[in-house]
């Protein structure tokens, strides 16, 4: 796949991630800015189809743009911390331990760390580590749910894209 095509594909993925990010913004789970991490679908897809670096770019650009379009600075901090931490964990699991994990397992781990990242930032912003403890149980339960859903969705998207002739060709 040449540079331009790759960039176009990534741009498309980012825009989709952005849409998910914004849709999620309409249903604040805990606080404006703290998210379940539906946009992780696109992170995971990029991770599998393009690689770690590309996934990280998707996360960062999505977080920054998403927060600029609808959100605040704190929302962006949550988003970046959650997104990057989750991307690192998912990347590590996918590239090192792929054989032992299903997509759902990886995305659940991603979702959990997505929340840990956000809560760490929230603890820092509010200056109490209490936030981490208070919200960890609730958000971890939620993460198991979203993680499963995100994993499932990514699996179908990846499967679908890999079956497409144009994509295979694109991927080269």
């Amino acid at each position, binding site marked *: 796949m040449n540079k331009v095509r790759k960039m176009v594909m990534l741009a498309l993925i980012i825009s989709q991630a952005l849409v998910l990010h914004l849709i999620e913004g309409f249903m604040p789970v805990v606080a404006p800015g703290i998210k379940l991490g539906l946009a992780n679908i696109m992170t995971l897809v990029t991770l599998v189809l393009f690689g770690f670096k590309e996934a990280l*770019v998707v996360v*960062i*650009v999505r977080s*920054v743009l998403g927060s*600029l379009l609808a959100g*605040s*600075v704190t929302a*962006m901090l949550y988003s*970046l911390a959650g997104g990057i931490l989750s991307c690192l964990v998912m990347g590590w699991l996918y590239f090192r331990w792929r054989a032992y994990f299903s997509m759902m397992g990886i995305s659940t781990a991603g979702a959990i760390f997505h929340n840990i990242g956000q809560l760490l930032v929230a603890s820092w912003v509010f200056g109490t580590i209490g936030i981490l403890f208070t919200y960890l149980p609730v958000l971890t339960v939620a993460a198991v749910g979203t993680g499963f859903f995100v994993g499932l969705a990514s699996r179908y998207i990846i499967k679908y894209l890999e079956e497409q002739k144009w994509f295979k060709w694109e991927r080269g």
Partner: protein
Amino acid sequence: MKRYQRIRALIIAIFLLGVALQGCARTAGPQEYRKDIFALNTWVNIRIYTGKEGPDILDKAIKRIEEIENRMSVTIQDSDVSRINSNAGKQPVKVHDDTFEVIKKALEYAEISNGVFDITIYPIVKLWGITSEHPRVPTEAEIQDKLRFVDYRNVVLNEAEKTVYLKEPGMGIDLGAIAKGYAADEVARILKEEGVVHALINMGGNVVAMGGKPNGQPWRIGVQDPRAEGARRHIAIIEVMDGSVVSSGDYERYFEEAGKRYHHIFDPSTGYPANSGLMATTVVAPNSIDADALSTTVFVMGVERGLELVDKLEGIDALAITFDKKIYTSKGLKGKLIVTDKEYELQS
């Protein structure tokens, strides 16, 4: 790699912008303003919680205190009180409304207390000179000589003319036991007029609490340890939302001669420092002028008579500390006083 750098630069820029914007979003709430000055022969401290106009409000309050001092001080030559004293036995003196009001209030307390509280004690005060450079114990004859002039019934008020007249030459009045309370009330009045809700005024130990603390809890006023030897230390705490707490005691101003302590609160019936078995009294009242006058009165009267008087007065409470470090309280203060010093024993 360049692309990453650009993204990083963008992120940093947005962070900085965000931090800057959050900085100005905060609005200032009520703030604490304090003022300490020396007036009415004592330290005055005012604490208020308000907006930016705080310093102006404090200035107004201070001006009023100075005005009161200029009218009611015995040491200022042309004050109302000095003019009344120098015209004793000669002629009635026209005074300011506030001076008139304070003297009237003082005479009311003289009436209530059967002369235990008496502003005509001034000749005795001068004789002992406890607040002066050279205090001394006068002879019995000297005291008897001056005691002739001590009688509040010889103060003649003319409501219409706002004049005060001392019948006997040689008489004199001293508003020291009541003026501070009046000034504290006046400060509270000015603060209220200016819209201040929460404030704490300390006029030489006369405390006026206004509106509780800004956090909704009552002000916690300490009762001075009468044997702290000049240190600010409390032995008990009284919680007040609105009202005044005033203490009087043998520790405030005194001198010692031949191992005996001579303090500044005189018993008008003997001409000697009051000796009713008390080290100190504290009175809680809605108005500081009442608390001020009554703390002196209770101190001279002693535990039994003093607390009995206080129990008869509506909305006023008192405690008395005896030489054996026992604390007696009026009925209304039972269960409300928090004793913090184990050496002192609360009597029920």
